[in-house]
């Protein structure tokens, strides 16, 4: 690698007409461009889903509010959940995986570049279909214009009798199409990681981000496929008059719950494992130490992957399973805490004794550690069946999973944005705007989601469009909404930072963080072919070896 690859600079391209540029982006099969498309697409839907959350919070700001009608409120929480999971979280994580995995394993592209483009456009079509339901959902029935069935779409809400018109059809088809896209990307990631590594990049030398994305891709295959099957069944019920979830003809509503959560719970880990991946790359670099316990991190993640496949019914304690099922799912749920705890200790072990640099990516990672821990603890609380009977379907659950998804996954994602933005654009994100973003978002997050636990404990059910005054929920809900606005402002600061820094940011150079993985060995942004000559690696930190030839990692392996 050395001089050849390092010498490649971004060649000055003469300006082309915008139609050609657009055509280039629309027809691209380059993993970096597709990664950027995934991320921009997800950011767009992040804003849309965020606006829906804002509408929900304004409606709940005070009792007896009539900002939106109950019907619109139902549509808002359904669209918010569906959008955030399927069209924000999955695409943004796939975007990062797409962009980073080939660069980190020393490959020039994914194993199947055209499949990659196909998968992205399927996902894009899925999001389009979901939002087209606002226009086309009412069909001939005049029966409401967007899905209002909740993001789990429990039967029998999805049956023709309770969901006339086409809104549920758009929901089903949208997730089916996006699911095919996800499976395509997962297959592509696995093939890339197993078959496209550069010489010397043994499995035991892959960066943790690559390892964790390999496990994530495996879980996508095992988790999204059942959802796809369930969506096919729902489509058969709605279009062909099938009876899978039709209780009138002997069908079972509970079966849909099982099928949905067999997807739904592993899905949480599909989202959080890439977040672990970002943290596992960023914490070592800003602690100036190699990751602590690399093999244990891989092993713990594989463990999480396996155990998470057998915990789904902890979402269903209140439907009345027998005591053996309750015990089984309570025990497996708590067992997930063990490998997760191992990971948290490993990150702390990495920071311990390091020369920690409190740059913006590191700040987000540290907040991630605390918040993910708390989210895990409320998870253990909800995992015990008797406690769950009390709190299932309350705002405590809403607070818990938002703590995981916002406090854990979104914070790690922000860290990833600040860390890799220089590689993608060639410019640094503003550090002062970044710190403002961090502190605003941190304060807003804790205002909203710490406080939200309390009305849940006091018995406030989720998905209600309003509530009676004087139950002790009023002030709490008001604070939650204020927090949501602070988070909204923080997101605006972030988006402003992304836009301004693209033109005004400091030049990044190849390796602004003095990092150790292969993506930092090429120019920023990387050339289309990634590596002028394919690198050869001899350790887990190839750039350390390059920078410290007197004391390379390879001599300790």
């Amino acid at each position, binding site marked *: 690698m050395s001089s050849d690859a390092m010498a490649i600079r971004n060649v000055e391209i003469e300006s082309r007409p915008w139609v050609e540029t657009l055509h280039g982006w629309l027809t691209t099969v380059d993993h970096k461009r597709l990664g950027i498309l995934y991320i921009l697409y997800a950011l767009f839907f992040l804003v849309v889903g965020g606006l829906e959350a804002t509408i929900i919070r304004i409606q709940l700001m005070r009792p007896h509010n009539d900002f939106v009608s109950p019907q619109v409120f139902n549509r808002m929480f359904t669209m918010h959940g569906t959008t955030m999971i399927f069209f924000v979280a999955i695409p943004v994580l796939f975007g990062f995986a797409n962009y980073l995995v080939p660069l980190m394993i020393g490959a020039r592209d994914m194993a199947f570049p055209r499949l990659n483009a196909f998968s992205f456009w399927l996902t894009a079509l899925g999001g389009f279909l979901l939002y087209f339901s606002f226009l086309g959902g009412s069909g001939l029935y005049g029966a409401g214009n967007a899905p209002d069935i909740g993001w789990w779409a429990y039967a029998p809400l999805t049956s023709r009798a309770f969901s006339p018109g086409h809104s549920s059809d758009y929901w089903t088809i949208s997730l089916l199409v996006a699911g095919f896209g996800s499976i395509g990307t997962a*297959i592509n990631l696995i*093939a890339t990681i197993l078959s496209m590594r550069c010489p010397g990049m043994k499995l035991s030398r892959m960066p943790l981000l690559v390892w964790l994305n390999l496990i994530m891709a495996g879980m996508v295959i*095992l988790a999204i496929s*059942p959802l796809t099957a369930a969506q096919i069944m729902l489509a058969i019920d709605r279009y062909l008059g*099938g009876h899978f979830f039709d209780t009138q003809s002997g*069908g079972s509503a509970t079966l849909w719950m099982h099928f949905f959560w067999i997807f739904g719970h592993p899905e949480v880990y599909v989202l959080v494992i890439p977040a672990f991946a970002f943290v596992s790359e960023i914490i070592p670099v800003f602690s100036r130490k190699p990751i602590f316990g690399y093999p244990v991190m891989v092993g713990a993640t594989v463990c999480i992957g396996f155990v998470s496949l057998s915990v789904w019914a902890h979402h269903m304690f209140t439907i009345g399973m027998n005591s053996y099922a309750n015990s089984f799912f309570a025990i497996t749920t708590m067992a997930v805490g063990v490998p997760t705890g191992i990971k948290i200790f490993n990150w702390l072990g990495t920071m311990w004794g390091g020369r920690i640099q409190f740059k913006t990516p590191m700040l987000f990672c540290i907040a991630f550690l605390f918040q993910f821990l708390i989210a895990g603890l409320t998870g253990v609380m909800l995992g015990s069946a008797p406690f769950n009977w009390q709190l299932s379907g309350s705002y405590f659950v809403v607070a818990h999973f938002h703590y995981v998804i916002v406090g854990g996954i979104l914070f790690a994602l922000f860290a990833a944005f600040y860390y890799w933005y220089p590689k993608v654009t060639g410019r640094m994100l503003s550090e002062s705007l970044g710190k403002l973003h961090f502190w605003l978002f941190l304060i807003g997050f804790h205002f909203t989601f710490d406080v939200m636990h309390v009305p849940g404990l006091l018995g406030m059910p989720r998905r209600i469009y309003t509530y009676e005054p004087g139950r002790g929920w009023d002030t709490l809900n008001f604070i939650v909404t204020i927090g949501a606005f602070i988070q909204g402002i923080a997101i605006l600061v972030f988006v402003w930072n992304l836009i301004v820094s693209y033109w005004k940011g400091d030049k990044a150079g190849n390796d602004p963080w003095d990092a150790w993985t292969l993506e930092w060995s090429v120019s920023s942004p990387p050339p289309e072919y990634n590596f002028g*000559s394919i690198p050869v690696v001899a350790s887990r930190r190839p750039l350390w070896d390059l920078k410290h030839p007197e004391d390379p990692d390879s001599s300790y392996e």
Partner: protein
Amino acid sequence: MSAITTPFPGAGSLPYRGKVAMASLIFAESAIFTIFVVAYLFYVGKSLTGPTPQEVLETPIFFTICLLSSSLTVHFAGKSLERGKQGAFLILWSLTILLGGLFLYGTGREWHRLIYEHGLTISTNLFGTTYYSLVGLHAFHVTAGLVMLGIVLMFALAGRVGADQFRRVDVLALYWHFVDAVWVVVFTVVYILGR
């Protein structure tokens, strides 16, 4: 570290990407089929109205033999191609398509009989819903496989499939074996356990 010159490094030592991808696809498809099989087994005997599987299903022994033996022909077709025996490859490959087509004909005939003689459709009862979904999902995979086998046959007739294409043909054969293996499961569930 030094630059190396091979354009496709590791091509020898790392697994073939086509095979890895097909194996991953097979895992994904297995998960989909598992859900359909679970639904089928869950609903056995729960239909509120007839007809029931005991009354109307006939075991398709001959067509099952057709499909399972097509796994053998596709395997030996691949072997022939690897050894450069174009003629044997063409014959065995066409035979695979023929056997797969026969199986599809069998499914079609059975569905025709069930619909027109017994009035069983996908909306009749739970048995109809689960039966047509599961068998139909499998038949869809057979159809997709036949289309892909057919494309390879066209290229082969045009003289474009040589021994150098062996690995690609092998990936397709892997898919076909999977379709056959799924039929073993579907057959067991629908025609043995389900009755």
